[in-house]
């Protein structure tokens, strides 16, 4: 597969494919995709061009809503319900959107494969994993023989020897993508696999057709860090071995640094910058790329404000002149808002920005001379009028740090939690009752005023431990003490204890009642505490201001707000009754990088203003490192390491911690 693929069928009018592009496996030329809404067409992809050569790995990065996934889907002709209104996509010389259904199917069977984001939804729960990989193999081998009977898997009619043959190759593939003991797992159903394993199975299905081009749409976003590292490693090895070209869609620049040769930065459906990964990450030319890099918590000093990009990705409705990034761009001049930005071709990539004219060469050190995000909490929606009065008086240079107190607020003494599994009567009689040890003999203390970070792989018992602290679960053995008093389930706690603990859940969409407007969501704890109408109202406006939302958000319903705004509402609700402890269960992992930075800034500010104690659960070590004073590492429900953040993360003494630290994709790998 190392040779240049032969040109299959160039139409006579195919002027868009000059000779020098014949070597490209994938050529996207000025692609435009629109979505019809009742406000008019929204331009999701607006003139994207790039190309891929065989064996190359290219990353597409950008915030959510930038058109990354739509671009990827359009390449294989899955843009529904969007509509391709302009431009061409050539794979192996075939124009995807003009090809017949048959030719397109053949392309998908032989040349292109796709790995999707959510491993839970890519596998069919009704068939075992081996069958699904085998199906992909079969389609590749005999694209013409897709008879109904073969698909009913009726033993009488299906060809057993073929079936066995495919099954064996499925086992081989499972081995290649790193599923342990594939021969035993081949008969398992998707629900018996963990998230990482499912994603590997999805990769195996994609690889079954031995594609020349693999499109991976956020393949590791739903996975925890260690699994992500393993999967990326596997992906890198496979692409090298097979000389496969990979198009990787991701919002994580760390992932890009890890495996991509080149990067395409998308914003509002337009290509902002392209270039080799090392160059783009070390010396980004475009302000948007620079801003994205700045947002990463790993770049900021601990407990200080992270620079943010204010505003959100615009929805491009109708004709809007100028650069789409101009409203959020700190370097924007009037010309940016009026005319289309020019695209500069350089030896190290392209950049679509007027700045090329104004500034010439950017600084070699990455050109971070511009100031981003001043010391203000601003609303996600980019309405700059919503400024927290308390926050704006503060200088950005002052460290946002509270002095950790010494008295312990929460203490867990030998706490264990077991769950009964599949406990039927028969099992109980036979004595084969299985139970799962979610948390095993954990002893730890949280001092007043500190931030304790709880890290570990998924399934290590982090959330269970948090639920034990909040009272959503009761320990099987051991004691949970709050301020010295023994506390149990939430239902048995006194009102005062309940007020002292606020909780922010991972997914803001599911943690807010979709049927209540924001003001009532925030007022809920106040109402439960018997506050009267007027007091509730005053407190709600105070809270809205302190989390950086404006009064006009108060009457909105949750589905009218963005993810970052919703998380602000959830935070406002958590601090409504002036709690002493706030349990943050993955508070930013469902959010975009730029929104993540803003929420973290808000949390740090609130902690300092209100003297809060945080219990922060996260699988993202960068976040934990940025916010926490102390870190506790959990593995299989046990505490394997605990200590000050700097010490634990810099010199991990337990292999589990070392593995976690190792797994974090860092930009520095490639640039140094």
């Amino acid at each position, binding site marked *: 597969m190392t040779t240049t693929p032969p040109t299959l069928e160039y139409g006579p009018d195919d002027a868009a494919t000059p000779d020098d592009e014949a070597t490209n496996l994938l050529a996207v030329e000025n692609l435009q995709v629109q979505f019809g809404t009742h406000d008019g067409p929204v331009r999701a992809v607006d003139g994207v061009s790039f190309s891929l050569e065989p064996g190359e790995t290219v990353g597409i990065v950008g915030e959510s809503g930038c058109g990354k996934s739509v671009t990827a889907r359009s390449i294989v002709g899955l843009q529904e319900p969007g509509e391709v209104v302009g431009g061409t996509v050539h794979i192996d010389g075939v124009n995807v959107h003009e090809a017949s259904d048959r030719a397109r199917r053949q392309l998908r069977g032989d040349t292109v494969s796709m790995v999707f984001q959510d491993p839970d939804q890519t596998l069919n729960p009704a068939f075992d994993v081996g069958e699904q990989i085998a199906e992909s193999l079969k389609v590749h081998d005999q694209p013409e023989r897709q008879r109904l009977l073969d698909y009913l898997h009726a033993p009488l009619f299906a060809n057993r020897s073929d079936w066995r043959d495919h099954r064996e190759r499925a086992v081989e593939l499972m081995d290649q993508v790193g599923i342990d003991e594939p021969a035993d797992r081949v008969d398992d159903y998707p629900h018996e696999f963990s998230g990482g394993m499912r994603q590997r199975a999805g990769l195996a299905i994609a690889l079954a057709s031995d594609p020349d081009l693999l499109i991976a749409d956020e393949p590791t976003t739903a996975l925890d860090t260690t699994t992500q590292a393993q999967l990326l490693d596997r992906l890198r090895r496979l692409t090298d071995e097979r000389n496969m070209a990979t198009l990787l869609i991701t919002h994580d620049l760390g992932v890009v640094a890890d495996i991509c040769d080149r990067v395409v930065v998308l914003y509002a459906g337009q290509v902002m910058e392209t270039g080799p990964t090392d160059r783009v990450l070390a010396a980004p030319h475009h302000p948007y790329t620079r801003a994205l890099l700045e947002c990463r918590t790993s770049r900021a000093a601990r407990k200080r404000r992270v620079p943010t990009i204010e505003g959100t990705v615009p929805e491009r409705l109708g004709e809007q002149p100028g650069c789409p990034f101009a409203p959020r761009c700190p370097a924007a001049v009037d010309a940016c808002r009026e005319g289309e930005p020019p695209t500069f071709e350089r030896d190290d990539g392209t950049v679509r920005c007027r700045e090329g004219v104004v500034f010439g060469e950017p600084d070699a050190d990455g050109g971070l001379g511009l100031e981003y995000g001043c010391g203000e909490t601003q609303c996600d929606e980019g309405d700059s009028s919503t400024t927290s009065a308390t926050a704006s008086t503060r200088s950005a240079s002052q460290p946002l740090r509270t002095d950790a107190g010494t008295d312990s607020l929460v203490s867990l003494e030998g706490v264990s939690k077991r769950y009964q599994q599949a406990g039927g009567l028969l099992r109980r009689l036979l004595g084969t009752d299985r139970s799962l040890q979610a948390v095993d003999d954990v002893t730890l203390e949280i001092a007043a005023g500190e931030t304790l970070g709880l890290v570990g792989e998924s399934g290590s018992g982090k959330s269970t431990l948090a639920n034990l602290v909040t009272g959503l679960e009761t320990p099987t053995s051991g004691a949970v003490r709050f301020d010295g008093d023994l506390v149990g389930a939430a239902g048995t706690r006194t009102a005062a204890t309940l007020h002292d603990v606020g909780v922010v*859940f991972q*997914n803001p*969409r599911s*943690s807010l009642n979709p*049927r209540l407007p924001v003001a009532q969501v925030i007022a809920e*704890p106040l109402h439960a505490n018997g506050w009267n109408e007027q007091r509730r109202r005053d407190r709600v406006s105070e809270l809205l201001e302190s989390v950086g939302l404006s009064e006009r958000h108060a009457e909105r319903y949750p*589905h009218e707000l963005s993810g970052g705004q919703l998380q602000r509402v959830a935070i406002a609700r958590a601090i409504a009754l002036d709690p002493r402890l706030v349990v943050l269960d993955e508070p930013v992992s469902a959010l975009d990088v730029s929104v993540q930075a803003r929420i973290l800034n808000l949390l740090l500010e609130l902690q300092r203003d209100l003297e809060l104690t945080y219990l922060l659960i996260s699988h993202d070590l960068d976040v934990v490192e940025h916010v926490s004073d102390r870190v506790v590492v959990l593995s299989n429900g046990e505490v394997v390491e605990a200590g000050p953040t700097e010490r634990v993360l810099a010199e991990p003494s337990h292999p589990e911690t070392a593995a976690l630290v190792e797994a974090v994709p860092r930009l520095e790998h490639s640039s140094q």
Partner: protein
Amino acid sequence: MSVALESIASAVGRRYRALRTSRTLATFCANPLNVAGLSIVTAITIAAVIGPLVAPYDPTTQDLANRLQGPSLAHPFGTDQLGRDMLSRLLYGARLSLGIAVAVTGIRLVLGTAIGLLAGYAGGWIDEALMRLVDIQLAFPGLVLALVIAGILGPSLRNVMLALAVVGWASYARLVRGTVLATKERDFVRAARLMNVSRFRIATRHLLPNVAGPVVVLATLNMGTVILGTAGLSFIGLGAQPPTPEWGTMLADGRHHLRTAWWIANVPGVAIMCTVLGFTLLGDGLRDVLDPNHETTLEKPT
């Protein structure tokens, strides 16, 4: 006082804005069948409400001189065997049929939702006991049970109503219980528990609004079957008694004159068919927009 007024005003403004910008409404109107269902139901409701004002004759006044008249300008739908105007009887009948349907569905809905909510939220033995009660109710053939009840209590519209209400609530209870079980595991209910919100308030403010969608769909679909059931019981003489203008009774009257006066049976028959069709189409349309699985498309990206 002014605070209360203000909050009412803001609530109204909120609803209006929600309705205006609602993609739900746009989705609903995108399918012409939904619009057709809504139009039929609206038309019948209007007919039922203003019927007595526009009906040209009294529905029970006999005019034996003009019996069995075919459709004409004076009697658009003809007259029956006692000379009563069919159009007037039809309009008054719509009041009855719709009224009974609303009342029966209301009783079923309230009873079923309360039981389902209690069972789903309380769990444990309360859940077991209530759900076995539901199973028992579902094990009886509905219409036969209604027949028995109406037979024992004696033929009258009120008894038909009771009979139909008693047999139909179980499906609501099951639906609500299932939705509550799913909803109570969601984070916002857990958050409410941690905020010391009382159980009653969690049930009414957090769980109930979130089960409303599927219940409304079921109730709409149910209206049609209740109208059919009422007409059926009246047809066999257990419901409305002559001379009450009820569609089922009218149908029963007309069956003796099918050869000579086809309109007597066909007019109420077509009315019943249209009403049931209207409610079914409306219910299907509502299912499309109120189903929780469709809500994901209404969300903004992060």
